[in-house]
């Protein structure tokens, strides 16, 4: 047990100095597409906003955008960081968990994208996290575990390794984790 607790402390300490480089490298790949979404959203979710996010995610969605936007507004009203339970509102709407998280993220950037690469990097550091696409209650719990791991890193990263950027710290860490997986 002691070993599993110690590993994230040791491995994350190796990760922190690499955060600026990994983050900016990932930004080079993703920033333009990201900004095209985040700066174009209204306060309330709309069909147009939801479509932008689905396109950004490359998600195939055949349902009604208006219904999805209305659901997202209910989620935004009830989601309280770090609980992700509200995402269950999207159940049976034809989107998977990472897409549901992306819808939430763009309106509430403290919730990090749920990405396989970032989860892989976290597991590499000794965190017990899972990445699952189906939107089920159990998997939402897995996403909350993923948030907790990112919160661990957010709380402990030394300030010299936090780049000056206008993205929230959750996105910064998640971007660096994604960059780490892509670089290895």
């Amino acid at each position, binding site marked *: 047990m002691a070993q599993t607790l110690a590993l994230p402390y040791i491995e994350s300490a190796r990760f922190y100095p690499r955060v600026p480089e990994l983050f900016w490298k990932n930004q080079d790949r993703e920033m333009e597409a990201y*900004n*095209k979404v*985040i*700066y*174009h*959203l*209204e*306060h309330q979710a709309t069909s147009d906003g939801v479509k932008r996010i689905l396109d950004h995610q490359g998600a195939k969605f055949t349902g009604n955008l208006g219904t999805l936007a209305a659901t997202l507004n209910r989620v935004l009203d009830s989601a*309280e*960081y770090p609980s992700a339970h509200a995402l269950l509102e999207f159940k049976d709407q034809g989107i998977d968990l990472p897409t549901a998280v992306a819808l939430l993220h763009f309106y509430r*950037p403290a919730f990090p994208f749920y990405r396989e690469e970032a989860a892989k990097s976290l597991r590499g550091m000794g965190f017990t996290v899972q990445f699952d696409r189906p939107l089920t209650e159990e998997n939402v719990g897995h996403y909350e575990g993923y948030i907790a791991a990112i919160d661990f890193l957010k709380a402990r*990263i*030394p*300030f010299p390794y*936090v*780049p*000056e*950027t*206008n*993205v*929230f*710290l959750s996105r910064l860490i998640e971007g660096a984790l994604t960059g780490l997986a892509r670089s290895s």
Partner: protein
Amino acid sequence: MNPLKGSPMASKSVSTFEDWVALFNDWQKDIGYDTSLLGDFHFEAKFADEDSPVIEFGDYKGRPKWNSYMQIPNQQVRDALLNLIVYQGDTEFASVEQQRHLIDTAPSDYDKKSIVRVNAEEMRHGWQMATLLVNYFGESGKHEAAKLLERRSWDNQRLLGSFNEPVRHWLDFFIFAEFVDRDGKYQLKMLSRSAFSPLARSMGPMLKEEAFHLGTGHTGLRRVLQANKIPTPILQRYLNHWVPTAYDLFGKDQSGTANWAYVWGLKCRFNEFETEDPVDKNQLNDYNRNLYYQECVGLVDQLNQVRAKDQPALVLPSLKFRRSIGNYVGGKYTFAGEEFKGSDADYQDYLANQLPNEETEAFLAEVFKQNNWIAPKAA
């Protein structure tokens, strides 16, 4: 003078931190801050792990850091420390007062989220300083913690000049976040190795949050330049207005206060643990100000790279220009730092042409009515 005379806040005193929190809630109402915007933001004091259990610079170097008021060697040191914390806390609440009215005119919803986040974190930083004052500095600390919420920026009562200047619009905000908040980064880092452990441990979380504020300013200015709707000569005037106030925040060139703060291990140089330069305790403020200046030169270079090719390059105002304290007070210099040859009246005319005025404000008001003054514009 009690600025709150007659208001519900005037008669309240602070015995416990809960009392201070009640004052904080009253302050939010009094300045008209819509707290519903803060959502699930949680106000709390955050403390990082200690860099070192022993004092790392100054005359007490090598001795254990102080964890309580009684461990601080003498009253002079306690007073100096209290003063540093009060000034830091004052700037945090002041900046929220300056920016609170910008929320309604945010150019995008993400910009709105960003400024709310900045405001929330500045409030948290003030909360952090109040935590130290109330919990570690006895009656005088409690009194000072209350006063943090009694002074008002718009009544010119805040302790430092930059924080009494109105932040009129989003261009002001981006410049403020880029240059005035950047002074905050310097102050926080210089306190992050303080002999007073609770203060030192407060700085890491604050600096991490400050990185977002600085990034918001820099990105905002880049977007303004990319949109190319505000000519750089106009933008230059706003730099000329704000940047010298940021220089002044570092304090007098030869400062006894900074000297003692170093000697007592309260506040070091910005690059204390990265430089081989021998310390000149009589020039600490100027030394740090020069580091800040060099960093800002690099930032302005970056901004110039995204300006339209037909626009003149922006220039970081000289350290000699429009200074209110230090060796250059009262001198006549151009914003580029050259000595101004001409009469006082000529110099006033020169300044009038280099600073914001009613015409530039009217021009910006028209620009802001369009949806395209900042990139990326709404599609």
